[in-house]
């Protein structure tokens, strides 16, 4: 394998591992603030128990996010020097603002949030929790500004092949930002909703009858049920935005080769890029035209429009985009079914009496948010190829001149360590859940750090 391919795999491995943890911490920060606030308002121990359990998962996820994020920031220089050389004038300030307005905020106040409950007044502890949640969200904002700009660049001019910023407002609020940001924040909310519901279901299954487990089941399932329709709507809007700005990506998502009206929605197919056709199609007639153009005769772009006269392919590899899209949508539909069924069951039977099969499926879907998020990112990032910055810089032009065996060596090391950490991470969450279920989790009777008086009952 050559340096280019290896560098791409290495970056993909790093960013795939990295995104798992921010996906949890972005929304979990706000959820913790909610738990903390509910405890302050009601004085009910179940909220503090929920806070104490999930703050540990937050700290662990945060650490994994930080260290894998540092790796990413170095890889720009070690493997992709062409990126900063060409678009550094835009990417640089955006990354700088992320570090300055988000990273320090979350890192410093995380210390106070985790270890300061007994050292600072309650208002400062709640403020610290808020600032950590705010910091993670700001971080998501800046990095998605940069990512969106790479998909739909504007507000710049090229001088000698180097990008120079001309309009920062246009750069920040580029056309795909609102949809991408909304889509990602909702994805984070859904990931956390199903993680909380899934781990609570696991605790219930192993015999934890405590009130906090019922509360967490209710919280996770209701949050999931509320967010998933919003996510489907946001996904649709994001898709329409992509159709306008990156038609080749949409063509690959739909597996559509020829531009034309009455394009079918493919439920299943095996795209064959060599023969430029699909095999084994299962299709809904006019479906793609209806979804993308809201009319059966709507014209949907085809991949063959993105092949140059000399045969150079200027569209993304079809199969991973096509399949990634189906995995994401399929997971979303499963989330919809599970959370709505869950809300129905809670409404009819209460969160204390959820049937075992339902709890088992909920446990199985604890990490479904990760699956959907990764699949979605593969669609959008592979869908941008062969461009690194659409129309400005190809991925190949940015790769650094490092010997292939060297990249291979570091890639192997990263993959080994990421696999080990992934196993350890999931193992520790299950361990914490078991320990909490055994009642070995140190939860105090009386809250020393609470601003409220505990009701007498």
């Amino acid at each position, binding site marked *: 394998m050559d340096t280019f391919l290896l560098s791409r795999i290495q970056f993909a491995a790093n960013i795939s591992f990295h995104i798992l943890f921010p996906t949890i911490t972005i929304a979990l920060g706000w959820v913790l603030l909610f738990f903390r606030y509910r405890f302050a308002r009601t004085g009910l121990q179940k909220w503090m128990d929920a806070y*104490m359990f999930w703050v*540990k998962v937050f*700290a*662990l996820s945060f650490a*994994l996010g*930080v*260290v*894998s*994020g*540092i*790796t990413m*920031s*170095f890889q*720009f*220089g*070690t493997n992709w*020097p062409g990126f*900063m*050389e060409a678009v*550094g*004038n*835009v990417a*640089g*300030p955006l*990354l*700088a*603002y992320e*570090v*300055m307005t988000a*990273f*320090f905020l979350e890192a*410093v*106040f*995380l*210390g*106070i949030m*985790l*270890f*300061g*409950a007994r050292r*600072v007044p309650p208002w400062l502890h709640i403020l610290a929790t808020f600032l950590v949640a705010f910091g993670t969200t700001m971080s998501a904002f800046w990095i998605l500004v940069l990512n969106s700009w790479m998909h739909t660049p504007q507000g710049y001019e090229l001088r000698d092949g*180097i990008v*120079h*910023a001309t309009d920062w407002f246009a750069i920040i609020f580029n056309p795909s930002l609102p949809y991408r940001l909304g889509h990602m924040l909702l994805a984070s909310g859904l990931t956390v909703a199903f993680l909380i519901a899934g781990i609570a279901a696991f605790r219930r299954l192993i015999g934890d009858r405590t009130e906090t487990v019922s509360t967490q089941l209710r919280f996770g399932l209701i949050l999931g049920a509320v967010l998933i329709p919003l996510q489907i709507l946001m996904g649709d809007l994001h898709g329409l935005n992509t159709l306008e700005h990156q038609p080749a990506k949409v063509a690959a998502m739909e597996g559509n080769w020829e531009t034309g009206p009455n394009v079918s929605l493919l439920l299943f197919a095996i795209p064959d890029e060599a023969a430029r056709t699909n095999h084994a199609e299962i299709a809904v007639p006019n479906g793609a035209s209806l979804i993308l153009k809201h009319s059966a005769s709507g014209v949907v772009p085809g991949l063959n429009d993105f092949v140059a006269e000399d045969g150079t392919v200027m569209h993304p590899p079809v199969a991973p985009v096509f399949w990634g899209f189906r995995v994401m949508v399929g997971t979303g539909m499963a989330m919809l079914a599970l959370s709505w069924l869950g809300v129905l069951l809670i409404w009819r039977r209460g969160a204390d009496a959820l049937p075992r099969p339902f709890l088992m499926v909920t446990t199985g879907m604890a990490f479904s948010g990760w699956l959907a998020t990764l699949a979605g990112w593969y669609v959008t990032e592979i869908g941008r190829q062969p461009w690194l910055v659409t129309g400005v810089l190809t991925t190949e032009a940015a790769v*650094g*001149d*490092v010997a292939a065996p*060297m990249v291979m060596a*570091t890639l192997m*090391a*990263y993959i080994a*360590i990421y696999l080990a950490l992934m196993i*350890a991470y999931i*193992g*520790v969450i299950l*361990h*914490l859940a078991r320990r909490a279920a055994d009642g070995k989790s140190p939860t*105090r009777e009386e809250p*020393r*750090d609470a601003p409220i008086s505990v009701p007498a009952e």
Partner: protein
Amino acid sequence: MTLDATTLPVIFAALMGLSILLYVILDGFDLGVGLLFPFAAPAERDRMIASIGPFWDANETWLVLAIGILLVAFPTAHGTILTALYLPVAIMLIGLILRGVAFEFRAKAPLAHKPSWDRAFFAGSLMTSASQGFMLGMYVMGLEWTVFHVVFAVLTAGALTVAFSFIGAGWVILKTDGALQLKAVAWARGGIWGMALGLGAVSLATPFVSARIFERWFSFPEVVLLAPLPLMSLALIVLLWVALRHLPTKGDHFAWFPFAGATTLMVLGFFGMGYSFYPYIVPEQLTIYEAASSPESLKIILFGALFVLPMIIGYTVLSYTVFRGKATSLSYD
């Protein structure tokens, strides 16, 4: 002063220098705590972790800021330096990953796994310190991979590792008491030699690698004006050595001195290096003026930095104030 292609690179070089200096001091002490792990008993380790728990995350962020400024303000230098140091950078990153996660896992994983995570914490700290020292050596030598340069870099790798363990011991002396504090004094006594050796090696080697740097230090009147820098360092090392013979004192006076002394030494060494290499960002190859990105982009970052950096320093001070005093056990409630 106008903000243009001559002043902006200097401002950003200064900002990057400040970030690196803060990183070396702040992450230096928590890396050092990790390096001292094998010498401490399991119960003492918990207390050592408690002394750095609320800080390590933010400390590491200064590295992200430093590399961020290099990335955004000097993009061409960023590519040159990081591709030349590909392997040590990768080792440092894996070290940072190991220690960052071991920190969390050791407290949350099943008790039987704790010793393994402690070993990972030490290994990660060692990989990070040694590769940073190695990179420092290679940088001083002009980023060229020759046998002599690698040998020198291995030497600086060892020296910086010992220096970090010294500042780490200083931190433990400051933040603990009793038997652990006594132990930390002994660690610091062992580490001060490495610190002196490292500082001496880099200071002596730098002028002999480059005629330009030699000229900067040893021509008249510079040699007189600059004399306080090495003399102060020397005096400080002697003072530290004396202090470590008498610590800990009754009433815990001067427990702050080893940490403060180590910090001052790092600041002095840093200024010496800055003076030697200015205006080069890639030694003898690329100046900060040649490597800087466009003034428009630098201005927009500077605008933000002027607002945000004081805030960052403000709430960092708040955090150190909240967690002042001797470290006790670490808990979330």
